[in-house]
């Protein structure tokens, strides 16, 4: 904290007005699983700083490669030189000011700070062995152990610090010509049961009793938590004020009904149970649970201090160092059913989608998008799973594409399961708290 205080004082002495200084020390292990064995280990340990400085609405931000007073002062001096070249950002309104009370410091399993490679390998081996108890030909995945210490201070007298740690396990199983993938994550080693998770992941392939083809057309789609997370994160991304100003599909819809009236979507940075939570955002404003959509109505855009002032609202605790960023997405729905099987029974003609990727917008302004099921997808008829979809003669292929519109999708949510889980996917790695989500009338094309 001394380096942070000294850096702020030094920056003020050079005439900067708003100053944010942060220091991050991180240690991350990535243990790769491939071909049903521990494949390799990547470890990275870094310590670095960041400074954010303004003068007369001119903004300069810089990474600082070393955490020492000399490096911080050099970065601040360099910023002073650079500042002359910067044009003012007319709609800039300062950084968070006030006396804030933060929630309690994040709690986590201290054992995660001292795990050895062999401990991490044990987690991986247990997951692999669990998965191999089923009819699985190949197991792949990743175990990530992340430790971080974060400290920050601002010229408005805010000082904050927190430590955090988590362990994340992703597992893909291939067998019977199909694949299934899921994630488990916790801040506590004891809450991650890799053997059980491996067995449960592997058991999903048992649903693939035979395979078949479907025709292009309209289907009800039941998204498992992972693909639902992949898709729904676009809703909170588009609620960021930076996306709204770009003309994204939520622009101009504040206060209007955008989803079915049972739907609520929250951006929650404050719940300590979620691995992405922190007591404050990058300018020291307390994080909170913000209703983005409540009972179908678009309630809030996501702001930092400056953008909130611009629009005459309060910050939602979404400050990144430059632009606002999202926290953990939580989806809630009034009409819940017991479990996935109950949802399947509601489907007359539909598809269970367990994994998607490459979600791409055709048009961000109206929300048209397409996405590709990458893992097991099961055709459902009259409430019964019929067969796993396989449109081409290629191992582990599904071969269908979903074409929908984000606003239409959230209006057409029919029901969700009663339980939610922390969900994520490789190309949308932020975690969401997500149930299974049933969407009616979705256009599907096939190979």
């Amino acid at each position, binding site marked *: 904290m001394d380096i942070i205080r000294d850096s702020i004082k030094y920056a003020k002495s050079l005439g900067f007005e708003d100053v944010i200084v942060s220091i991050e020390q991180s240690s991350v292990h990535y243990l790769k699983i491939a071909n049903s064995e521990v494949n*390799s280990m*990547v470890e990275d340990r870094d310590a670095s700083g960041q400074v954010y400085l303004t003068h007369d609405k001119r903004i300069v931000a810089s990474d600082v490669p070393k955490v020492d007073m000399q490096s911080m002062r050099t970065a601040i001096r360099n910023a002073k030189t650079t500042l002359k070249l910067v044009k003012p950002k007319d709609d800039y309104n300062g950084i968070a000011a006030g006396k804030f009370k933060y929630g309690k410091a994040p709690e986590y399993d201290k054992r995660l700070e001292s795990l050895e490679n062999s401990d991490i390998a044990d987690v991986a081996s247990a997951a692999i062995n669990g998965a191999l108890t089923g009819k699985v030909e190949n197991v792949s995945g990743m175990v990530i152990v992340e430790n971080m210490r974060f400290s920050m201070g601002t010229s408005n007298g805010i000082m904050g610090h927190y430590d955090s740690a988590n362990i994340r396990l*992703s597992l893909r199983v291939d067998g019977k010509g199909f694949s299934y993938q899921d994630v488990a994550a916790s801040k506590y080693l004891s809450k991650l049961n890799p053997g059980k998770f491996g067995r449960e992941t592997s058991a999903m392939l048992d649903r693939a009793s035979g395979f078949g083809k479907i025709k292009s057309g309209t289907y009800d789609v039941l998204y498992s938590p992972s693909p639902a997370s992949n898709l729904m994160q676009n809703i909170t991304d588009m609620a960021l004020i930076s996306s709204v100003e770009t003309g994204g599909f939520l622009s101009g819809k504040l206060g209007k009904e955008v989803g079915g009236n049972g739907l609520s979507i929250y951006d929650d940075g404050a719940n300590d149970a979620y691995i992405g939570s922190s007591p404050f955002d990058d300018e020291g404003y307390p994080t909170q649970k913000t209703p983005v959509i409540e009972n179908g109505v678009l309630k809030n855009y996501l702001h930092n201090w400056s953008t909130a002032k611009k629009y005459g609202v309060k910050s939602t605790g979404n400050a990144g160092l430059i632009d606002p960023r999202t926290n953990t997405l939580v989806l809630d729905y009034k009409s819940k059913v017991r479990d996935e099987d109950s949802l399947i029974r509601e489907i007359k003609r539909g598809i269970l989608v367990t994994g998607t990727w490459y979600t791409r917008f055709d048009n961000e302004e109206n929300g048209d998008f397409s996405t590709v099921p990458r893992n097991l997808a099961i055709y459902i008829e009259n409430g019964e799973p019929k067969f796993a979809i396989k449109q081409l003669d290629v191992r582990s292929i599904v071969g269908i594409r979903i074409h929908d519109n984000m606003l239409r999708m959230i209006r057409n949510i029919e029901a969700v399961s009663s339980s939610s889980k922390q969900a994520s996917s*490789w190309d949308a790695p932020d975690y969401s708290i997500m149930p299974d989500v049933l969407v009616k009338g979705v256009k599907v094309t096939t190979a």
Partner: protein
Amino acid sequence: MATDIIDYAYSEASKRSDGFAEAYAEEYAAMGAAIEQGKFNGIFSSSGSGIRVRMMSKGNLYSMSTNLIDKQSVKSMVSRARGLPGRKVGMSDEPAVKGKDIVKGKKEPDIDGIKDAILEIDNYLQDKRVKYRSVYINFSHAKSAFMNDCGSRIEARMPIINVYSNFIIAGKKGTRSRFMQLGGVGGLEALSMNTLERRLDDEISGLYEAAQNGKNLSAQEMRGIKNVVISPEISGIAVHESIGHPNESDRVFGREAAQAGTSYINGGNLGLEVGSEAVTIMDEPQISGSNGYYKYDDEGVIGRKKTIIKGGIQNELLTNREYAAMLGIRSNGSARSSAYSFEPIVRMSNTYLQKGSATFDELVSEARNGIYVKSFNGWNIDDTRSFSMYQGNEAYMIRNGRIAEPVMNYKLETSTLKFWHAVALVGKDFNLYLATCGKGEPEQGVPVTNGGASALLKFNR
């Protein structure tokens, strides 16, 4: 400095390894600026250094990195490379390379130059037809040192400039969004500013025409289109997604299954007929000034030109030392990492459809009736790289052998094998388009280009 202790890092790794060891040190500096709707968002800079060692210990592979540059930290880092269960990883033997790849841009900008460039590009986009525009520019240069167990010792310096431009055109029939990435290895000269104004004006005019007068095809009309002329931009995205990625050896042999996915190519079908005889697809790192340029890969192997598809037949996988050893061959130099803190993995560089002999007019004339797709916005592909879709952004009907009215909603959606078997004629034009390709976990983006020639696809041959 990181490069000062590379000998020490390599020596420590070598002492504790089972044969394979390498060390890589990097010092970098970067600066960027952003403008949105003509408003200057700010200037951002970063600099730093770091060191990475990769080594085998008791038959397993470790990649260890830190930005704590002192002997004690490096020694401690190497000592932690242990504890995994045994697995024998082989590495191909490669010739010792003692070389330098020192690139100096003709016009490497200072922060003043960066500011001037972004203002100039923003100025080109100030057009009443453009309803939204943003520009981000970034210039970085990295100096690196490398040494490995083959006796290689390489120094490199790589400046790279990239501009990311996003704009939206509004017309009577709808909007068109366009993302463009410009630049390459070098300084400001890589932005080709002398031709940029005209290129952006062409883009704006074409997209405005689509937004103003573009026709929406019915599903039946869409299905009726059998002849498609694709521009080098469309060739490029298809080459990248459906040929380059599935020919990455780590993906073919399952190492990326839970991350960037698998491949329709596997150990049992190498040599598969992927397309027509007209299709030859290359990956070529050593194109000076290109975004995917490198002379030596991040395992110290010369990045040579690869013929991935030769006359329609799968010919060569992209390899690193690990998968070259598995295949009993030498690496073709395709291992890349985006920074010291990431492990090198198998990547593309500049990947393209080799040009043929047809003029653009001949492609259109031969198509007779069909569609010309000039640029794309949305696109995606499945896990095995077998089923792709490219959404036309600027596209025109072809009627009686001539370019006709613009089309708004065309999607080229088909299987990989049908796509490449449909190639009837390849153009003699050639262009490369910049991209940043993501892969691995943690995901790392490396600069690449995709492109090549235009082509005529006939789907009912």
